[in-house]
């Protein structure tokens, strides 16, 4: 911006002040490059990471039976079917539990909650929950679902734990989506004598759905990638049958962890191949979200 100021030397008889504009601008250019590099390093590492994983795991990923068989004691045999089924089941339960509760909580806080000290506490509480480490949610799940409700180390315990973990993110993003609905829409509806809930269900929710879905996908992707809480709840690293809701379970991240910790060399490739499967699952979820978001946006 402050570029070509050239001091006029003939007028500048008392010139002791030197502004050094050129060297200062040069320094500015240097830092612009440094900032850009700082931005690109992260992306470079991301590219490197993906390249490394595909290099290590693509062969194994494409080998016959990898997606369709149960794990084996040998790195180059067997597959990850129980882990895939577990992860899909976990994700399904998380969606079924968190979407109604999360959107309900968001609607309450945006549309119903009075301004009072206890609603402020609920809000602070939700933002704090979003920062609680995943493994601490594991302790909660272990205490409540495994022992108190007596499910034991079953898939349902893991799924409900992941649901509680996802809830704050869904509430926060849904609230933003609901807040973005213009008030004129609500007022037009109230003006016709429509009740509050009917206004919300017929105007506010349809308008906010794209934003809500984005939040749902972000948090379900996180839940599907989470391993720490599931380790505490009791996920196993080796399963030779397809899990049901009330059976022992695993998950793709747990399978990856279990493969990485095997000392025999071939398991690194199996871990990389499982990572590819996990990334593809997350990618597919995001694809569905983008598709639905676009369908709902065209109105």
């Amino acid at each position: 911006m402050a570029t070509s100021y050239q001091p006029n030397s003939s007028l500048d008889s008392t010139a002791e002040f030197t502004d050094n504009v050129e060297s200062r601008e040069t320094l500015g250019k240097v830092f612009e490059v440094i900032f850009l590099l700082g931005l690109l390093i992260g992306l470079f590492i991301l590219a490197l990471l993906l390249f490394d994983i595909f290099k290590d795991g693509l062969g194994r990923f494409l080998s016959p039976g990898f997606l369709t068989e149960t794990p084996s004691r040998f790195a180059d045999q067997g597959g990850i079917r129980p882990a895939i089924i577990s992860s899909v089941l976990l994700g399904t339960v998380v969606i079924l539990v968190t979407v109604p509760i999360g959107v309900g909580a968001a609607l309450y806080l945006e549309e119903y909650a009075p301004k009072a000290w206890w609603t402020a506490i609920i809000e602070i509480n939700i933002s704090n929950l979003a920062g609680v480490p995943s493994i601490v949610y594991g302790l909660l799940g272990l205490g409540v679902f495994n022992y108190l409700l007596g499910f034991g180390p079953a898939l349902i315990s893991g799924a409900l734990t992941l649901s509680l973990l996802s809830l704050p993110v869904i509430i926060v993003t849904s609230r933003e989506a609901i807040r973005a609905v213009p008030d004129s829409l609500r007022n037009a509806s109230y003006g016709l004598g429509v009740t509050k809930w009917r206004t919300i269900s017929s105007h506010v929710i349809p308008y906010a759905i794209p934003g809500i879905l984005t939040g749902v996908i972000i948090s379900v992707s996180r839940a599907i990638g989470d391993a720490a809480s599931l380790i505490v709840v009791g996920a196993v690293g080796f399963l030779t049958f397809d899990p049901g809701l009330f059976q022992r379970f695993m998950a793709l991240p747990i399978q990856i962890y279990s493969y990485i910790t095997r000392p025999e060399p071939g398991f690194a490739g199996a871990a990389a191949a499982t990572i590819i499967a996990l990334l593809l699952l997350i990618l597919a979820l995001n694809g569905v979200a983008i598709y639905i978001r676009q369908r709902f946006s065209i109105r």
Partner: protein
Amino acid sequence: MQNLNSQDDPYLLSRQSLDKNPSEDISEKIVGVILFACALVSVLTTFGIVIIIFQETFGFFQEVSFAQFFLDTKWTPLFADRHFGVWPLINGTFLTTAIAMAVAIPLGLSSAIYLSEYAQPKVAAVLRPAVELLAGIPTVVYGYFALLFVTPLLRNIIPLEIFNALSAGLMMGVMITPTVGSISLDAIKAVPRSLREGSYALGITKLETIFKVVLPAALSGIIASIILGISRAVGETMTVLIAAGLQPKLTVNFAESIETMTAYMAQISGGDSPRGSLNFKTLYAVGAVLFLITLALNIVSYWIANRFKEKYD
């Protein structure tokens, strides 16, 4: 939109909109109560965490004294010679966190500065979500990458143990970069244009404006983002579990294997410690320390971010 009213009779329709319909009134109230119950789930979650963690921790401190936990310098609950000094675990946690922040602060801040001050809006619209992809990669993947790519690479240059704090910390830093970057970016963008233009009008260069005007004005948001980043690093589990090892040590040597609080918790959960045993209770005692540290960091971050928010409004 179309289900405003099921009746088509215009008389009924107008009557309904003018009179109070008692059944509708009740269902409206029920909906309100149901939604309130949804909001209450989050409060119950917090209560659940606090009650469960501190109940077991209380049991732990009936068998192990506070002094043993906070004054001893050895953590060997699984050995015959048992020690319950938590400091080696805290040390490991903060060593990896320090390395992670040494990566995440410069990378996050330069991303935020570049996206806000230099990048064309169209470029920023592509680059910002690209950087945020880093946060969406499952952490077990960063663990894999740290152990099987970063460590072998670094061992060509510096002598490292196979499990070491450095590789885990570096990858954790990359993972946390979007946390620091995103919140800093919002803070930097919130600095009003007039401040920058006032600075340019005085003949100050763009870089000097950034360092002397924009960043100081956005400082509270930047600090909040850094504290939140620290909190994420302290609570991160899979990367350190896979790449940093399981050797609780009081050391600042990043080339060695260490153990973090989270890694210990995952380790003890993976084994079969029966409920009620002392080993099982250590899980909760360490969890309580972890929970309190991250809670404190989150509250401080929230407080700083909110305290200075309305400065320019």
